[in-house]
Each structure stands twice: as structure tokens, then as C-alpha cells.
């Protein structure tokens, strides 16, 4: 039980640091770090959502960035039309409308693609989720009205009650609060009766089916929840970068999200956040002196996957080494 307590402490320490450090850095004149932290926290929301299906559900989706892209364009497109006309029904600066659109369309996309993807397993699942994401990627590349390949600038950030997203600190606090909520949602779901079925099916699907569960329906539900959460993260990311392009949903982006989850520790509460943290740090440090910064990241990932059970969380809390089969 010692490991459990250590995991809890680690979660609290990391989340407290994320709550306190970025605002302090901002006030001490280091606005750059607040930017970094905002990106980190938004990516962490997406990683937390991926962890629900990848870590707890055993569904290795290689197309999760598509939801981020859909969420971001669900902000960009209404803003575009509200500024330049046409498509009145979706033209809006309202953040609530845009977020509802981001979450709704992501959930719908997850439902439709999930119904197909979840009929497959293993490598096929990885490839088909990637294929659907690439479809969305090319769809936006082909939409010249929204800039195609070049992307789209979001002129006006989402207008929300209570928070002003033009204030970097308020945007950060919203993202941070959202991350906490996302973590609580995933934690609650995975401990529930639903979560037990999901995790059981990950380990031994046939057994769980034999017990009487239509595991396909449970997986699909998790897939939709996960997609909707990633869509929400996309809406935040659009507001943060104020520039969106199909590149946000390329397959390398999906791969990075998978890396974050596995590196940090799949099926743990804080793992995806730690993974995002390390990802952001490596990206920042290494990309400043080599364009091949993915290499150290990849090497680190391989070491963690091969030698440490439970990723960084396992390493820090003293998780066991992988035992030989």
C-alpha cells in the first residue's frame, strides 16, 4: 500500500506546483514560463483523456490529435464566420457555444469512428484510428476557406462569462482548473463499476464477455468520453495559440500524446501530466540546439517502456521492474 500513498503524494505535489509556480513566474517577470505552462496543461488534458482509453482501456489510439484539431477548429470556424460573414448558424464569438460545438462534434466523431475502429484489435486498431485522423487532417488541408495548409488565425478569443481569455493568467487558470476536473472525471470513471468492466476487458476481454458484458459498448462509451475531452482541450489550445492549422492533428501529434501517456505512466492519475511535463521540457531544451530533438525523447521512452513498470510514476514511486515472462 506504500506505493499507493506515494502516488497520491506525487499527484498532490505536481498539481500544487502547477498551481503555484506559473503565476509566481509571471509576477517575477518571466511571462515565457507561463506560456510554457499553459501549453503543458492543455496538452496534459488531452493526455489525461487518452489515458482513459489507452491506459485503462487498452485501446492504443493513434489518432487522438484529430479531436484536438476538431476542438480547435470548432473555435476558429465560428469566429471566422462571425468576422467575415457567411454560415450564420455557426457564426459566434461565444465561448460556451464554441466549447459545446467542440465537445459535441468530437463526441460524434468518436462515436462514428469508434463504432468502426473498435471492431478491430491490436495493430489494426492503431492503423485505423490513425487513418481516420489523417482523413480529418486532409479534410482541413483541402478547406481553402479556412486557410487549408496554411491554417487560420483566430482573431478574437472565445468570450466566456467570468474569465477573460485575453489575460494569459486567466487562460492559464482556466486550463489548470480544466485539467483538475479532467483528472477527477477519469479517476471517478475508472473506479466506478463501468471502470472495472473497462479495465477487466483490457486484461482479458473474453473472460469479461463471458461474465455477461458487451465489452464493445463499454469501450465505445469510453472512447466517446475520451474524444469529447480531447475536443475540449483543442478548444483551449485554439484560444492559446490563436493560430490553428491541420498540423495540430497530424499523426506525429497523436504519437506525441501516446508518448506522454506511456512515458508518464499509463493507467495512473498523474502519469499523463508528468509525461506532458517531461515532453514540454525536452522539447524546449533540446529543440533549442538540435532539430533532432525527438531522438532523445524516443530513447528515453524506449528505456522507460523496457525497464520500468508504470512509466515515470513507477520509477518515482518505486514500481517494480518488469519481470521476465
Amino acid at each position: 500500500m506504500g506505493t499507493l500513498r506515494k502516488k497520491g503524494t506525487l499527484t498532490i505535489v505536481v498539481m500544487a506546483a502547477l498551481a503555484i509556480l506559473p503565476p509566481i513566474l509571471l509576477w517575477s517577470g518571466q511571462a515565457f514560463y507561463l506560456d510554457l505552462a499553459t501549453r503543458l496543461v492543455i496538452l496534459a488534458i488531452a493526455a489525461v483523456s487518452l489515458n482513459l482509453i489507452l491506459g485503462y482501456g487498452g485501446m492504443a489510439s493513434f489518432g487522438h490529435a484529430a479531436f484536438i484539431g476538431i476542438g480547435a477548429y470548432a473555435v476558429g470556424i465560428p469566429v471566422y464566420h462571425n468576422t467575415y460573414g457567411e454560415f450564420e448558424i455557426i457564426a459566434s464569438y461565444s465561448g460556451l457555444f464554441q466549447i459545446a460545438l467542440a465537445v459535441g462534434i468530437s463526441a460524434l466523431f468518436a462515436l462514428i469512428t469508434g463504432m468502426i475502429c473498435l471492431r478491430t484489435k491490436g495493430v489494426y486498431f492503431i492503423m485505423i484510428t490513425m487513418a481516420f485522423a489523417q482523413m480529418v487532417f486532409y479534410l482541413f488541408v483541402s478547406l481553402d476557406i479556412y486557410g487549408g495548409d496554411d491554417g487560420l488565425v483566430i482573431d478574437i478569443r472565445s468570450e466566456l462569462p467570468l474569465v477573460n481569455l485575453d489575460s494569459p493568467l486567466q487562460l492559464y487558470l482556466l486550463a489548470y482548473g480544466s485539467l483538475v476536473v479532467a483528472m477527477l472525471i477519469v479517476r471517478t470513471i475508472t473506479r466506478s463499476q463501468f471502470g472495472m468492466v473497462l479495465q477487466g476487458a483490457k486484461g482479458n476481454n473474453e473472460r469479461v464477455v463471458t461474465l455477461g458484458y458487451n465489452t464493445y459498448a463499454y469501450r465505445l462509451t469510453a472512447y466517446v468520453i475520451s474524444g469529447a475531452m480531447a475536443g475540449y482541450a483543442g478548444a483551449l489550445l485554439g484560444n492559446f495559440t490563436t493560430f490553428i492549422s491541420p498540423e495540430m492533428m497530424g499523426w506525429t501529434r497523436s504519437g506525441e500524446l501516446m508518448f506522454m501517456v506511456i512515458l508518464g505512466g499509463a493507467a495512473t492519475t498523474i502519469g499523463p501530466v508528468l509525461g506532458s511535463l517531461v515532453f514540454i521540457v525536452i522539447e524546449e531544451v533540446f529543440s533549442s540546439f538540435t532539430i533532432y530533438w525527438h531522438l532523445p525523447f524516443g530513447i528515453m521512452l524506449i528505456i522507460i517502456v523496457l525497464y520500468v513498470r508504470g512509466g515515470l510514476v513507477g520509477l518515482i514511486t518505486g514500481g517494480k521492474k518488469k519481470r521476465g515472462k
Partner: protein
Amino acid sequence: MQPLLKITGLKKSFGGVTATDDVNLEVEEGELHAIIGPNGAGKTTLIAQLCGALKPDGGAISFNGNDITSKPAHSRAGLGITRSYQITSLLMDMSVIDNVALAVQARSGHSFRFLKAARNISHLRDEAMIALGQVGLDKRADDNTRELSHGEHRQLEIAVALASNAKLMLLDEPMAGLGPEESKTMIEFLKSLKGKRTILLIEHDMDAVFALADRISVLVYGRIIATGAPDEIRFNDDVRHAYLGEE
């Protein structure tokens, strides 16, 4: 009275191998019906078709008066069929009690319940503990399933089947790999279930079968060559010739 399980003309082949060859079988409610047969006779294949893991090539299965031939595996479990596995099939990453609690949870129809932590739902835990107690595993409830011995895994298989509260239990060689002492305990335990559950028992251990079964069917090369009370089977010439290896 109609039988609880009725199999008619069931057929299944894998490539050239006919694993189930026109099988007809009836299992009465409350009966302990044993199936014996040499290795590769098609016993496990038969169970897999009954619980829905394998699709038969032909024939029909009816349970409790309903045709379930084309029902998916999960809804057959919902109707009251459960199985245990010849080769242990458990949720190795979960605790012992979680394995059983998941079976208890399945009784209530669906588990699209997202809020309350499953481990805090006391009736699930209590009923899982009862099933564990019945097979003598209650002391190991909180251990990781992977850490149990082979014998304990076999007991847990039975506890899971018990906890699902199924009308019909399909038990595929529950004694497989058990030592003589453990086997004895298992036989005693199955005896204690007699009359309370309908059981289709597959077993190699002849002593166990003759001690437990109300009726026995003999499966050879996918065909049932005889069905009858233990004594009839013991002295049936075909059976002695084909299976018991006596002249």
C-alpha cells in the same frame, strides 16, 4: 418437463477436423451431467459453442426453452449460462476479490454506472466474499490474482462461476493440474453444489466423474457415443472399447 439445455444436431469443424459431429444432448434442470472423452474429442469446443465464444456450423442450442443458437456470448451469460476455463482465464492484473465482484456486478444487467467507486459498494463486496468463502479463498481476497498458486487459480475460476449466480454452469476440467488433496477438496465442493445448480462437467478424472455425475455422456471424435447413468456407462461395451481402453 423440458430440459434446461437442449442441443440438437450441433456441428463444428476446423478445416478438416470435425470437432463437433452432430451432437444431441439434453441436460435436465438440477442435474450434474458429465462429459468424458479422450484428448481432442471436442469437449472444450462444445462448451465454447454453448457459451457463445464459438459459432457452430449447424444445429441448434436451446436454453430454458429459448433458441440461443445465434445469441452473442454476453447475452447468454445474461440468460444464466456461465463457464469456467480448462486453461485458467482470470483477470490477472486485478485483485482476487475484484475478479469475483465483477461477476456479481454482471447480475444487475448492465454496469453503465460511472459515479460510485465499485470497491465501496458493499453488497458487491459481500457477495463476492461469500463466493470466495465457499471455495476457501476468502483469506486471499485482497491479494493480486497473479500471485495465487495454480490450485488457487482453479478455485477462483469456480468462485467466479458461482458468483455469477448462473442457472447452468459449464465447468471445463476444474480439476486440471490439481494435486490429489486439492482434487479431493474440489470433488467434495462440487458434490455440495449438487441439486442447487445445473452443472455440465467436463472431466478426465474417472473417479471424480463416477462419484459426482447423475448422468454421463461419452464424446469421441466429436460424436456422443453413449449417454446414461454412471453404471450404464461403466458397463457399456462401446464405451469400454472406444474410451476406457478395455477389451
